[in-house]
């Protein structure tokens, strides 16, 4: 939704703002909150790089280049979304944000964009106080801050714009200074979760309208609320259950849902790891960072196709044979691709093909969770436990007796199974390794870049595996075991909920997931859109505890 000239006038007729919009002191109406479930305190959440870019694109248009080096994100309890409540910005980060803000602002005010985006005729050169400019800054600010500017904030912006225009003798430079400031400010960079107290006696509350709108929009679209959602917040409609539900359904029905779902799975599957993935290019020349990009995209397309376009069962992700390939991926998988030019085309693995474990045998999974020069059953097993089954595997202990691993009579173990043998027999190691190794060893037919192999160092690979008592052969067996595992569906429901609300589930929420969300998810055939809807309409989605009382 680009910032158009028409909007300036629309906003000018909007509701008048109170001095302190974050804390109205009113009690919400409509939706009942499960008050026996204490949930997270409000938090400041740093926008991710993709959210930053999406927001800028939504407001100013997708031809504005918002690429820049941004500070690294923190993963907490398996999700970057949870870590966003903890990231702080070091001076290097401010440097980077300031540079990026300036770059974006410079484009908005340049000759190519200014008429369309700002649209104020250059009347009196240095006067910032004309209503058109004021209106632009207020409108841009509202979209950037995801709520109307306070009068104090607006004053700050206008003064800054005036100063900037004076120094550089150019009204647009002044507007640029204001935009640069807003894009570097905590009101933009952080998502503010402002509470509204419901019951001061029990310290319970819920997110105010704007905060709730943001949470919903970032959950489903990975971007800032659009104009319609902001208006619904502003008018109070979001505080009614019918108004809220209408917006939920609107966002779910939009094609932009794909972006939100992609952002979720990128986070859940740890795809940020691809940025620093390195493979030995002498042993595996087919690997390149471009292949990494293709690998991620293959999995995301498969997920979107199965879950969104076809409204499929989540469990099928572990057995689906349909995927999408580029020529590069075809070269790694050793299958003919229809896309002989460098484009994407659908592909279906035959029943003969050993690649029958859906996303588990995609390069994005097996290559990401491996070493540079060889595969890793332990890392893959751990990834399955932690990313897909929500089961924590403890870190290795400090002082390990590695003398046990050196069997001097057989110094060269040819297959990974042989190398990891000691993990299974030594009691100190087995405790954790029995969680990971039997699972990961079933994927040993896939090397460190995802190509299929039947031998390692001349020895035939034994890909038998085990998941919580269920024995199977090879990757296809693993896929089926994952499909049948109740932990897999419970995990995605839990993670998606946590991703949406931004905190780890507490005891009461866990109970609600088990007795309420879980059975509903099953009833809906494990489809993702109903799950998203259930979460967005859940009592926990807007609930908050320990709101700050003024």
């Amino acid at each position, binding site marked *: 939704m680009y910032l158009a000239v028409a909007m300036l006038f629309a906003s000018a007729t909007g509701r008048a703002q109170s001095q302190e919009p974050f804390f109205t002191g009113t009690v919400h109406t409509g939706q009942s909150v499960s008050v026996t479930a204490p949930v997270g305190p409000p938090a*400041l959440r740093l926008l991710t790089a993709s959210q930053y870019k999406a927001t800028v694109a939504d407001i100013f248009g997708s031809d504005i280049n918002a690429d820049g080096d941004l500070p*690294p994100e923190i993963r907490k309890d398996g999700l970057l979304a949870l870590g966003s409540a903890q990231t702080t910005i070091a001076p290097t980060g401010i440097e980077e944000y300031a540079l990026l803000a300036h770059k974006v602002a410079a484009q908005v005010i340049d000759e190519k964009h200014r008429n369309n985006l700002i649209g104020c005729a250059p009347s009196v050169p240095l006067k910032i106080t004309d209503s058109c400019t004021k209106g632009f800054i207020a409108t841009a600010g509202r979209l950037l801050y995801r709520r109307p500017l306070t009068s104090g904030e607006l004053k700050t912006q206008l003064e800054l714009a005036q100063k900037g225009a004076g120094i550089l003798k150019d009204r647009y430079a002044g507007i640029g200074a204001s935009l640069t400031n807003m894009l570097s*400010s*905590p009101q933009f960079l952080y998502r503010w979760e402002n509470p509204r107290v419901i019951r001061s006696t029990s310290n319970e509350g819920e997110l105010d309208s704007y905060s709730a709108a943001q949470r919903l929009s970032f959950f489903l679209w990975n971007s800032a609320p659009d104009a319609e959602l902001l208006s619904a917040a502003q008018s109070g409609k979001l505080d009614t259950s019918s108004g809220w539900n209408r917006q939920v359904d609107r966002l779910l029905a939009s094609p932009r849902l794909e972006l939100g779902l992609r952002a979720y799975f990128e986070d859940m599957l740890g795809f940020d790891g691809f940025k620093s993935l*390195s493979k*030995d290019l002498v042993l595996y020349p087919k690997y390149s960072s471009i292949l990494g990009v293709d690998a991620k995209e293959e999995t995301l397309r498969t997920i979107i196709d199965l879950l969104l376009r076809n409204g499929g069962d989540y469990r099928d992700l572990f057995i689906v044979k349909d995927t999408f390939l580029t020529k590069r991926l075809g070269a790694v998988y050793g299958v003919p691709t229809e896309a002989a030019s460098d484009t994407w085309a659908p592909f279906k693995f035959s029943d003969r093909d050993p690649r029958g474990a859906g996303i588990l045998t995609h390069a994005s999974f097996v290559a990401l969770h491996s*070493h540079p020069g060889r595969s890793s059953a332990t890392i893959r097993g751990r990834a399955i436990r932690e990313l897909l089954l929500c089961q924590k595997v403890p*870190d290795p202990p400090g002082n390990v007796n590695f003398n046990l691993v050196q069997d001097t009579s057989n110094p060269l173990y040819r297959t990974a199974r042989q190398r990891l043998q000691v993990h299974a027999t030594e009691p100190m190691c087995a405790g954790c390794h029995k969680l990971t190794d039997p699972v990961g060893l079933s994927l040993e037919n896939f090397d460190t870049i995802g190509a299929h192999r039947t031998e390692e160092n001349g020895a035939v690979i034994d890909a038998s595996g085990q998941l919580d008592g269920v024995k199977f052969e090879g990757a296809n067996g693993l896929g089926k075991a994952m499909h049948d595992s109740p932990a897999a569906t419970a995990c995605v429901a839990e993670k998606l909920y946590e991703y949406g609300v931004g905190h780890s589930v507490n005891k009461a929420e866990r109970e609600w997931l088990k007795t309420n969300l879980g059975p509903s998810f099953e009833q809906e055939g494990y489809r993702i859109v109903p799950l998203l809807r259930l979460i967005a309409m859940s009592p926990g989605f807007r609930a908050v505890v320990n709101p700050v009382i003024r």
Partner: protein
Amino acid sequence: MRIATKLANRRKVLKGILGSAVVTVALPMLDCFLTSNGNALAATGSEIPVRFGTWYWGCGLRPGRWEPVKPGAGYEMREHLRSLAPFKDRINILSGLDVSLDGNPARVHWSGTRACSAGEVLDNAPSIDTIISGLIGNSTRFRSLEASTSEAKGAAANTVNSISRINSALINPPEASPTALYTRIFGPEFHDPNAAEFRPNPNLMVKKSVLSAIKEDADALKRQIGANDRQRLDEYFTSVREIERQVDLQLVKPAPLPSCTMPTQPHETPEGTEVDTVSTNHALLINLLVHAFACDQTRVLNMYFTGGELHKSGDPTTHHTNTHEEPIDERAGYQVKVAWYEEYIMDNFAALLKALDGVKEGDKTLLDRTLIYAFSDHGLAQSHGLQNIPIILAGGAGGRMKGGNHIAFRGEPVTRAGLTIQRIMGVNAESWGTGSMKTSDSISEIVA
């Protein structure tokens, strides 16, 4: 605790310069060019500043192969460290220093790193470079500069390849791309101190206003949030002030520096953990950092050389995996492949010393005026050992550190090194470290 910068004088001087006036006369020596110890810059003929740097590598060194046999000033350089032989008399080798967990869980490839860099095995305390840059970093454009040869996560539990932390959440992230680091230091915002003319950039004045306006809504914002978030917001505003300080410095003509030359702009290089790629990128990065020292863009550098994921082209096993899996060679008596990596790492450390030594400053070199603190995460990486962590101190620290010593410790914490370093660099530290690693004893043999 940051030392406040004195800006009042500068504001008066700057009034009227804005916009177009060309300043050809050097500004009088302002307070900001002095550290709190009063060391002025070379331009006025006074003492040239002392610099500090950390150089970190993962997976230690095999005990028994690197420690000189005898302690003392006349130590013999071991074959394993032969690449450091040219600097024998300007480095101090500290052996036998230990890390104490005090019951805390051992986080492999990280507890030792934290102990050496911050005096504790947890993640709360500030790292030594931030303590020192808090003291000596006020008058340079960058308080400190962090680099690493790759973004690939090594064996460690840390999430970012940097030892430089202000607290558990505030990490100074590294730059891994030489071209990006060049642009950051020597790109459009760089003022050559030796350039004849100085024109304060009006865009920078606007930038200054932009930054200072961020704080105007601070109070209103802080009222709305809980204590935790308030702290994060404070850290955010502190970071903003830090950048404001940078901008302020860039609005004043820098003093000329004879040893400052522009480095050549590096070409785009591939990134990765293959050993040739790593040493190429390392050479490019340290070249930029050394030039940054010479041009007084910073006085503190942090190089995170490797977390352990080094590998040789064609070898499926990384350095780190080899430390655990390679059997001891019967004839040699140690892990041969691991030994190769350790010597490769020392080669690259020697490259840093050589680069520093290549810049003349007056009658000495940059290495004479720098203190480099090189350390690792483990002693014997094979078993994640926390005894006998290899620590090497290099450089003259402006005459404050004596070199050429091997000190063989027994049952002493690694914090002995960090405390000594801080005192040499002028930090008023009564003690350093937590729990049984708390110490108040410097290593007197190396203090001049």
